């Protein structure tokens, strides 16, 4: 068996140096995707670069600008963070859906994004919240919106030597909220057949002024659905506009046909979940409006 190294950088710059020096090295965060891939022979890295000893990557900070989420922070820690759950309930829901509590004890949002599964649960919720990826590499730091981070199943914009350091989410405006829903064949511990997230902002009179909609597991990467957003903006988020948004999401979906769902089924479900997620986000935003 070929030997493998285990590296434990203490800083982002040290991690970047290690990654740049060895193209065969792989970042290890929670390992809940990577170790499965390693064990089944899908990935055979020359080194594991354990990023969980870099304090910056293991932190949650919320200030007037918004959230900075260290890429390797365990999902369980995120799911228990009261202020994060209050400000971004849909994002917190998506994190709390990842596997079991034990998977969440080590699994991270950074790993969820970097693994780049089309069905990854946090992607849609991050997209509707305008989240950005903060990336460090040999040439310094850059940011990429989450919606542009994954380019194909299993592939991201990360270049050799780069790593995802943090996810930044701007603070939501007044009367803004979000929601994320997915459909799985079992009630727990399964991969989404389809998922949908919505974020809506209401004015004082209850009209929707801004909306973001994203759908997952129905295309090679998560998709933003501008047509669904347009159906919601300017409306009171009544049944008719929610139905138009659902139809737009179904039309935008480009799902595969497999044992877990046919193309037609996934298309329909993407619409249903979009309608329900938008309705939940709207109810949450109205609730905020009633106690400012």
């Amino acid at each position: 068996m070929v030997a493998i190294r285990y590296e434990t950088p203490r800083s982002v710059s040290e991690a970047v140096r290690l990654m740049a020096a060895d193209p065969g090295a792989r970042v290890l965060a929670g390992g809940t995707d990577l170790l499965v891939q390693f064990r089944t022979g899908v990935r055979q890295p020359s080194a594991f670069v354990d990023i969980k000893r870099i304090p910056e990557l293991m932190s949650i900070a919320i200030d007037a600008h918004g959230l900075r989420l260290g890429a390797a922070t365990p999902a369980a820690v995120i799911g228990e963070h009261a202020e994060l759950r209050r400000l971004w309930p849909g994002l917190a829901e998506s994190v709390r859906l990842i596997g079991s509590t034990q998977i969440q004890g080590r699994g991270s949002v950074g790993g969820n994004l970097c693994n780049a599964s089309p069905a990854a649960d946090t992607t849609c919720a991050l997209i509707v919240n305008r989240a950005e990826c903060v990336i460090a590499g040999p040439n310094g730091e850059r940011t990429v919106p989450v919606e542009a981070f994954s380019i194909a199943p299993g592939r991201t914009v990360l270049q050799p030597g780069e790593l995802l350091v943090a996810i930044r989410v701007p603070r939501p405006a007044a009367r803004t909220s979000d929601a994320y829903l997915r459909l799985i064949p079992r009630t727990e511990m399964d991969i989404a057949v389809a998922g949908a997230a919505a974020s809506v902002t209401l004015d004082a009179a209850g009209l929707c002024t801004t909306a973001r909609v994203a759908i997952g597991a129905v295309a090679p990467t998560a998709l933003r659905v501008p047509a669904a957003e347009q159906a919601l903006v300017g409306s009171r988020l009544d049944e008719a506009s929610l139905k138009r948004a659902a139809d737009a999401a179904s039309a935008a979906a480009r799902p595969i046909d497999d044992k877990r769902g046919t193309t037609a089924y996934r298309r329909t479900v993407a619409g249903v979940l979009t309608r329900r997620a938008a309705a939940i986000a709207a109810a949450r935003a109205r609730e905020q409006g009633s106690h400012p």
Partner: protein
Amino acid sequence: MSPTELDTQAPPFAEPHVADQTADVALIVNGRALRLVIDPRVTLLDALREHLQLTGTKKGCDHGQCGACTVHVGGRRVLSCLTLAAAAQGQSITTIEGLAESDRLHPMQQAFIDCDGFQCGYCTAGQIMSAVALLQEPCGPDDDDVRESMSGNICRCGAYPGIVAAVQAVRGRRR
């Protein structure tokens, strides 16, 4: 390689010293400070079972699906089959062997016996480790909240009603 008992007066562990592609890993397992020199690919599950002879933690799927291998690392429940031993460097680990105090079972262990929370027993160590961790987590009061929180632990024998009863008994929620 067999583990060496560490001098507990030794300074706190810094980082795993990695040389010649082996990892020198210091762990505190059920309160005992131990040192292992192992291949960095060794999972915490294999380290416990094969190197430390702590076979109470079970290997069901080795892929994160079943929960049989659940242990606590740094106070949180994790899957030891998806955790490399080297990643647990310097951490405090509790396994099923560490719950009882000499002859006195942990209340959760006793409740599993009292409530018929198992049949063959293969999943039980993992179930109990999850159930003990659940007591410290923000889990809602109802049976359904317990089912949701225990959903990462599969029981091939279907002892679920007894498992939920045991957890609720320890939480003081009569049903």
